[in-house]
């Protein structure tokens, strides 16, 4: 890697007048059109853009890309994020010009194929989730949660049941759950976990009354433990007149094995970028489709894609007009400008169709086996607070030997030296030194064994030469950023950096 080209911003590589292009002179007489523009919107000087030759730009971004870490680079056991491999076939489908070139407001008759793809994914997700209908519009998991809670709120309001303002959230929940509830204008009530990591039914019972709108649950929960009491919990919640919301963050181990709809959930979201292998975060936009059980379809947001064999006059609809974009008057309203992140939806559709139902049913058992293998191999060195068979992920409470002064943060940073992405740390908040590992089904036994070996090495270092772990990382391009200072005074623009 070239430090010079990576360590500088492209603005800092700029030299005045150095350009990578030569445009011919403007031969069109468009000065008249420009004269009609208001002076306030006309540029008076050249834009402040970096000026570099093409080769410098190519090297700059190429070098920078090698400092990015992704699933394509190495093992990425980031708990609760399901960092599975994103098959390249998905990329090929999504970037196909028949899809990539579409305008979002093209008339339905011109995009029947795209609408069929969208509709098909709606049907497949409904089948997988055990739901009646799905909207693919939400742009991410948290956006899906918000949409789902708005659906629930609208459902209660439609019945004149306006005093239901509370959402019950377990103390092991993802932080997005209470955040989404707050954004939806609802009040958050926390329910405690039992020592075995599952929701405490006795703690839940007194919380349920006619002011509760919904209970949000992740199953398996963030400790990777299946909520065995889910039928009882769903029954209690429904008895109280509230709805069950399923946070699909941990759907991966359930895929084709168990369905949230069958467990008693009324509304759910799915993180396509987790379970259905579409890129995460900076690697691509997310997608958080929301499904509802029968009877709640009318509360889903608009627009929707529908298939029609007959029109409103009961006349047959021609093949080329079968799929339509519908703006329903009864709907929640719009939560996105169009039909969501279509290219992400295509990747998920490609993943589902290429695995097929048999392939999908292997995902959960393999992800579960991989997680349990790592857990069992490492629990002599790392503290396993809840001794049980986990699902797709599990949580250690730091190193077993607490006398070394080596923390979970240190272990995570030491893993970077060995070319691994760190697991999720300090979440869930149930333990002080949480270290949450999710290997996914993508990884081979060799990869798992290498990782286990390194984790044992780090535990030994913690006992014998703790400073090596405490001062890690030693080999990364950036070693010890000041995260407190960064949180207090973040530098977010080039101008702020230049002013320093």
């Amino acid at each position, binding site marked *: 890697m070239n430090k010079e080209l990576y360590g500088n911003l492209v603005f800092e590589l700029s030299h005045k007048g150095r350009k990578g292009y030569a445009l011919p002179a403007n031969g069109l007489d468009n000065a008249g059109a420009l004269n009609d523009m208001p002076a306030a919107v006309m540029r008076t000087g050249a834009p402040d853009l970096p000026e570099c030759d093409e080769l410098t730009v190519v090297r700059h971004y190429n070098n920078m890309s090698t400092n990015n870490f992704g699933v394509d680079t190495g093992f990425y056991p980031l708990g609760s994020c399901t960092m599975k491999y994103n098959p390249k076939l998905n990329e090929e489908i999504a970037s196909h010009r028949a899809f990539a070139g579409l305008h979002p407001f093209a008339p339905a008759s011109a995009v029947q194929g795209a609408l069929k793809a969208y509709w098909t994914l709606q049907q497949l997700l409904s089948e997988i989730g055990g739901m009646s209908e799905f909207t693919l519009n939400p742009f991410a998991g948290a956006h899906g949660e918000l949409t789902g809670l708005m659906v629930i709120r609208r459902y209660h309001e439609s019945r004149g049941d306006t005093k239901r303002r509370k959402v019950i959230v377990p103390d092991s929940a993802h*932080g997005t759950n209470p955040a989404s509830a707050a954004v939806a204008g609802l009040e958050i009530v926390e329910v405690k976990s039992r020592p075995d990591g599952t929701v405490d039914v006795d703690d839940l019972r007194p919380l349920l009354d006619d002011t509760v709108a919904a209970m949000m649950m992740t199953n398996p929960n963030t400790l990777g433990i299946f909520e065995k009491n889910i039928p009882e919990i769903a029954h209690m919640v429904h008895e109280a007149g509230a709805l069950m919301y399923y946070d699909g963050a941990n759907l991966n181990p359930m895929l084709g094995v168990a369905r949230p709809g069958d467990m008693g959930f009324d509304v759910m979201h799915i993180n396509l970028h987790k379970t259905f292998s579409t890129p995460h975060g900076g690697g691509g936009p997310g997608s958080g489709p929301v499904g509802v059980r029968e009877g709640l379809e009318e509360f889903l947001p608009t627009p929707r894609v529908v298939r029609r064999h007959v029109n409103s006059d009961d006349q047959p609809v021609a093949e080329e007009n079968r799929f339509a974009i519908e703006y329903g008057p009864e709907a929640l309203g719009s939560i996105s400008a169009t039909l969501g992140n279509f290219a992400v939806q295509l990747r998920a559709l490609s993943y589902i169709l290429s695995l097929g139902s048999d392939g999908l049913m292997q995902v959960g058992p393999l992800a579960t086996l991989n997680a349990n293998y790592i857990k069992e191999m490492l629990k002599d060195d790392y503290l396993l607070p809840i001794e049980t068979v986990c699902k797709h992920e599990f949580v250690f409470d730091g190193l077993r030997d*607490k006398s070394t002064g080596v923390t979970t943060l240190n272990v995570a940073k030491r893993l970077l030296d060995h070319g691994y992405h760190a697991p999720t740390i*300090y*979440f869930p*908040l149930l333990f*002080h030194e949480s270290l949450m590992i999710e290997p996914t089904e993508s990884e081979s036994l060799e990869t798992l064994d290498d990782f286990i070996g390194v984790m044992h090495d780090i535990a030994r270092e913690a006992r014998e030469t703790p400073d090596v772990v405490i001062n890690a990382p030693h080999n990364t391009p950036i070693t010890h950023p000041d*995260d*407190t200072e960064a*949180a*207090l005074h973040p530098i977010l623009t080039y101008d702020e950096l230049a002013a320093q």
Partner: protein
Amino acid sequence: MIYYSKTHEYINMINDTEGYVGISAFAAKQLGNVVYVDLPEADDEFEQGEDFGAIESVKAASDLYAPVDLEVIEVNEALADDPRLINADPMKNFIMKVEVKDASQLEELMDEAAYADFCAKEH
């Protein structure tokens, strides 16, 4: 006399009815470097167990809970400028000065020794 809650807030009584509320040294250490404190306002009233604010560190965000029924007399504005003061000395850098509404609730809290035992069991 200093009292502690199970959620790691302390109340340091300066007379029969007034005291300083903050988070314990144990909690500050567990949180790591504090980067933001969501402070209440003077004259706000809170019931025992009600959240009166929040604290954010590089590791986590946590709600702050009133150890007893109380009314806020003043808040420590210095924390808005430099929340790291909490890590430097959580007892000196209290979050708010309060008037205790029901002194009998103090009896439900832990004293220094009981709290030390409680923390030892936490880990």
